[in-house]
């Protein structure tokens, strides 16, 4: 990797100097006009709508969970700019290897809210992503997914496909050995993988400064010989530019890229978590000022392209999302078969035997009732 191969924005935002790529400020003012990606008004409006959709879906999911109609849920609140920017740059043929907090990108790939609800309702069919192409299930064992992404990268390169791999991890996840191994392999293999670290400042209760002593997370790329960049993750345009550039870089065969997206988890870690135990109201308020939706909205207002009747739109979204939730609730069947059927492509006799044994118990139970 000679500096010349490196896209300009990577050179200009060297993580060793702790620089951060930013296009608009919290007020929606353009900071660096030359960096503003070329997007027409409709695309920007579309982006905002998608962010709003993700936020609405999150709010509703939290409320369904509170109503006891769903199990533990991991909200995406505050991280929507990252997800939608990635979603707008990921192509059908590209791969998405998610962690568990990038709903907007999953939706962009064709995953449905019904599937999301099914999953958080405790049904594996919510992970089969029927209409989504090249999307792996949500990864819970932190760090492991990056290695899958690197492997897909190898496979793409080996088969000479024009496919890029988008994969995600949190700030906490960068401490796992699997993170380093995945990036190291990607560096050696020079594969088209875009690694995004969503640095939302916390791993459950543990602040990022307790995760590592490195100046930032993008700088970890140095250890693996791949380019890294720190980006304002609450700035939709900055994230868009980062993904655009990274995609070009990856597609040109130059290899993998690490993007640190600086953001903030506005909500709880999961619906079982209570952030007041470990963080201050003032901190939340301060970060609240960087809310990616607010910033993009302000930008649109300032530049006169704001044409959204937000409340009406949200209502439409709510209805649509509710419908998907109801569909998921309705399809809430879980036959005994489902426990056994997918463990192997050809079910071993042993599993048949175990299932039959359970069925005998069920018959006995019936006769007793």
């Amino acid at each position, binding site marked *: 990797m000679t500096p010349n191969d490196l896209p300009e924005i990577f050179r200009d935002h060297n993580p060793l100097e702790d620089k951060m790529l930013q296009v608009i400020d919290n007020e929606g003012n353009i900071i660096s006009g030359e960096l503003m990606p070329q997007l027409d008004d409709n695309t920007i409006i579309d982006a905002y709508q998608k962010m709003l959709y993700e936020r609405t879906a999150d709010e509703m999911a939290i409320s369904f969970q509170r109503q006891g109609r769903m*199990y*533990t849920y991991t909200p995406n609140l505050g991280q929507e700019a990252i997800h939608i920017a990635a979603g707008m740059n990921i192509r059908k043929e590209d791969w998405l290897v998610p962690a568990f907090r990038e709903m907007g990108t999953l939706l962009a790939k064709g995953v449905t809210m019904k599937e999301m609800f099914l*999953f958080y*309702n*405790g*049904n*594996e069919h919510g992970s089969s992503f029927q209409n989504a192409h090249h999307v792996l299930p949500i990864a*819970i*064992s*932190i*760090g492991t997914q990056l290695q899958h992404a690197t492997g897909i990268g190898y496979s793409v390169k080996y088969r000479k496909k024009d496919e890029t791999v988008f994969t995600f991890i949190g700030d*906490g*996840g960068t*401490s*796992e*050995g*699997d993170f380093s191994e995945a990036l190291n392999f990607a560096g050696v293999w020079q594969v088209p993988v875009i690694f995004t670290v969503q640095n939302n400042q916390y*791993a*459950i*209760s*543990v602040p990022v400064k*307790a*995760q*590592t002593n490195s100046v930032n997370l993008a700088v970890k790329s140095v250890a693996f010989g791949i380019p890294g960049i720190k980006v304002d993750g609450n700035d939709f345009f900055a994230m868009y530019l980062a993904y655009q550039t990274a995609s070009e870089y990856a597609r040109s065969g130059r290899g993998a890229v690490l993007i640190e997206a600086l953001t903030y988890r506005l909500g709880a870690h999961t619906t*079982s*978590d209570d952030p007041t*135990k*470990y963080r201050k109201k003032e901190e939340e308020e301060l970060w609240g000022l960087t809310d990616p939706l607010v910033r993009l909205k302000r930008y649109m207002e300032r530049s006169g392209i704001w044409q959204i009747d937000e409340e009406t739109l949200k209502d439409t979204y709510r209805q649509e999302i509710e419908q998907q939730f109801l569909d998921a609730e309705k399809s*809430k069947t*879980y036959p*005994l078969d*489902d*426990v*056994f059927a997918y*463990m192997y492509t050809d079910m071993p006799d*042993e*599993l048949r035997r*175990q*299932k039959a044994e*359970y069925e005998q*118990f069920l018959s*006995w*139970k019936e006769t007793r009732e």
Partner: protein
Amino acid sequence: MSAMTMVKAINSALDIKLKEDKNIVIYGEDVGVEGGVFRVTEGLQKKYGAERVFDTPLAESAIVGTALGMAVSGLRPIVELQFEGFTFPAFNQILSNVARMQNRSRGRYGAPLVIRFPYGGGVNALEHHSDSPEALFAHIPGLKVVIPSTPHDAKGMMIAAIESNDPVIFMEPKRIYRAIKQEVSDEKFTIPLGKARVVQEGSDVTVVAFGAMIRECQKAIVMAEESGISVELIDLRSIYPIDRETIRNSVRKTGRMIVVAEAHQSFSVGSELIAIANEEAFLYLEAPPKRVMGYDTVVPLAQGEKYYIISPDRIFYEIEKSVHF
């Protein structure tokens, strides 16, 4: 005496030992400020300071690996792994080093440390949060693997685990973390590791279980008693070393054994107990010892878990079958 949940009882054990021994430190993911996602370490950082009770980066291998380093240099670390499903990044450190340092160095360096984590199903959780991997740890020579089934046992076993000079895998049945309240002494007491407990005596059939399954077995026993069957219930408590003597005595008496556990049945505690019943009581067996356990499948997500988890009527069904063999 206070009414304690298992969470509180373990917290009390940790508290007592932290106060008593300056060489004890507790760490892991979210155990400090937050007090653990299940609040087992709640209040301990405040009381003993962030040098003794603290959060780490998110890396289980290093949590365990550094604990071994601390242990060989005079500390007695207690580490929390957040869920059983996240013990596996640390599996290599546990198997290759924690379990072996004492033997490898011919006793020069030991590994007096405790690795504790919640395990087991029945809580409608996401994947990796409902597993019962005790057999994987029990097959590793050099470890002690223990599981309490009551708040009282949890406290006494935790103190014994901390005082053990051998590494202890301390598995906490999360399903009954708060489901059972029991009067437990506020003082220090220990329950020796390696000894099973006869929960209730009986003459027709021996039921061996541990952790959250004890409660389910007790419900089944009520049903059995109604049918006139006398059940002896053994709480294994220690998965390794396993208490052959208690098993032997009971199975020789009843001639029948049923093992109830949540884990996948193949290559499991159930297999081991059946082997032991054969080795120790072959001529006394009147019916084939039986394992009533989870399938060799991933534990299903919440909607399907009812098929996987062992219910009291299922246990009763097997008790009856065994008695009428």
